[in-house]
């Protein structure tokens, strides 16, 4: 299924889930990768934006930074049962400052696939006409 923000890659990493996110710039790429991760876990359409979390991270390169950012979203799902639908990301070099909006797990949510972890397998950020990132999620 083609989606403007991301698409799933059907034949990659058989037991897991892979997607390719895109963005006009690095901020948008990170936002869309986070959105793809959220959409894999839950139906984001009806999520309320009642909780805001600030995430600040620094890494040695952008791919590691994306890995850490997405891993943080998985962590918040497991520990605080939080799911997010909107992301505001600012990338400055290899630093990230993000505000992410969502709500706590409740009976109205339609959960989809539980994600254990973000993998570094094929984790790639590249630029063609736009910025792209490929990510494989461990299910």
């Amino acid at each position, binding site marked *: 299924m083609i989606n403007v923000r991301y698409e*799933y*890659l*059907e*034949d*990659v*990493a*058989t*037991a*897991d*889930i*892979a997607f*390719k996110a895109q963005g006009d710039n690095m901020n948008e790429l990170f936002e869309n990768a986070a959105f793809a991760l959220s959409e894999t*876990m839950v139906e984001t359409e009806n999520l309320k934006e009642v909780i805001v979390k600030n995430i600040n991270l620094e890494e*040695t*390169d952008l*791919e*590691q930074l994306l*890995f*850490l950012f997405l*891993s943080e979203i*998985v*962590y918040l*799902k*497991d*520990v605080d*049962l939080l799911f997010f639908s909107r992301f505001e990301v600012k990338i400055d070099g290899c630093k990230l400052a993000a505000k992410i909006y969502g709500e706590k*797990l409740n009976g109205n949510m339609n*959960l*989809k*696939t*539980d994600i*254990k*972890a*973000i*993998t*570094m*397998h*094929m*984790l*790639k950020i*590249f630029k*063609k006409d736009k910025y792209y990132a*490929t990510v*494989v999620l*461990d*299910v």
Partner: protein
Amino acid sequence: MFEVIKINNIPKEIKKISDFVWEIPISFKKGMRVPARIYASEKLLNEMDQGVFEQVSNVACLPGIQKHAYCMPDGHWGYGFPIGGVAAFDPEEGVISPGGIGFDINCGMRLITTTLTQEEVAPKLKELINLLFQKVPSGVGAKGFLRITENQFKDIMTQGSKWAVENGYGRKEDVARTEDHGCIVGADVSKVSDKAIKRGLRQMGTLGSGNHYLEIQTVPSDKIFNPEIAKKFGINKPNQIVIMVHCGSRGFGHQIATEYLTTFNRVMKEMNLNIKDRELACAPFKSREGQDYYKAMACAANTAFLNRQIILHRIRESFQQVFKKEPEDMGLDLVYDVAHNIAKVEKYKIDGVKKEFVVHRKGATRSFGPGCNELPEEYKETGQPVILGGSMETGSYLLVGTENAMQETFGSTAHGSGRTMSRTKAKHLVNGDALQKDMEKNGIYVKSASMIGLAEEAGIAYKNISEVVDTLEKSDISRSVVALKPIGSIKG
């Protein structure tokens, strides 16, 4: 730039060693230190995805690897190592890699026998499954019934299954019938982050999600292949009811793996080390980082043994409640518990010399043959029980380890039937609700925390497990004892 490869290309360099063993020579890829060996029938080999060949040859490039990089017949495209991957490293010159273990550290299988028959259980099956579904929580946000303090959790990290038995959640013999007696030596709680503890603390006694399950199975009368060994493993009559559990260290293990993967990648960058796949990030086993990860991994492995032990306790409670009998009067004996995502220090005789190796198994099971000191007394003659989890629709196998596995594969064998279709594709093809109804029509009552998750686990997404078992038999890295058919299932 990344491209999706859809064509199934067996490398043209591949050499046939026997009808069931294939070798990718070191000329296949620059940097390979040893050849890669794939255990598969010709049919299974043809069906393997491109990722397997790429990944197993990447593993063959890692420093200190011994003999071969292996892929078992259930192998498929994973991350880092292929699923079904096995590699042994020299402890002095070799590495340890979180990508050779997986995020779900000590994901494994546990098989429990009962004295009950299918006829006795059938009238109460739904009640039993519904109760187990409550008592062994699964899916996102599930909290286990075990309420423990952080200090108790730390005790669990270093004691594993023993902690459960000492605290009233098991029998003494459960510990003996668990790989490494349910406790890997060397666990050090100071190597584990507070974040990992926070993530795992409330999850002990939960099943998780993905392909994790708890199944009520029966032994079909025509599927007892080795009655003598079956009897030693506690399976002595047709239609006997057994229970199979598949799960791991939950969020605790996932967090440890995530954090050390980041550490290893930073270290490799600092040292200007290049690897074929970042997921294969590694550190010398004897380095500080390598040892720190091993000690943290052991903490996660021990909590996984504990988790499966707590689940066994809840299974015993559920049977007691439903059948109104003491658990001991229904058997409910543990046959064995095996890890299939792990790295461990094990001794093997190679070229006449017995020495230690750091054996990584990623979606591969230990398959120790008869006579191994590590086995409990009752299994010393038979060899180790090997539990192969199949798809929820088609069934599973109980096998036994062999002497040949000790010689050929560092005492390793397959872990399941292996996926052949991606999750994304499976959920396009299968509707979870319809599948649940179909399965019930076919005599399998299933409850799942997620209908999408259920669809992803449909039988069509998996290889034919009989084909996998046939390869294991013919290559003699394990021998089948009985096949098991599901009649009730809880899916994560």
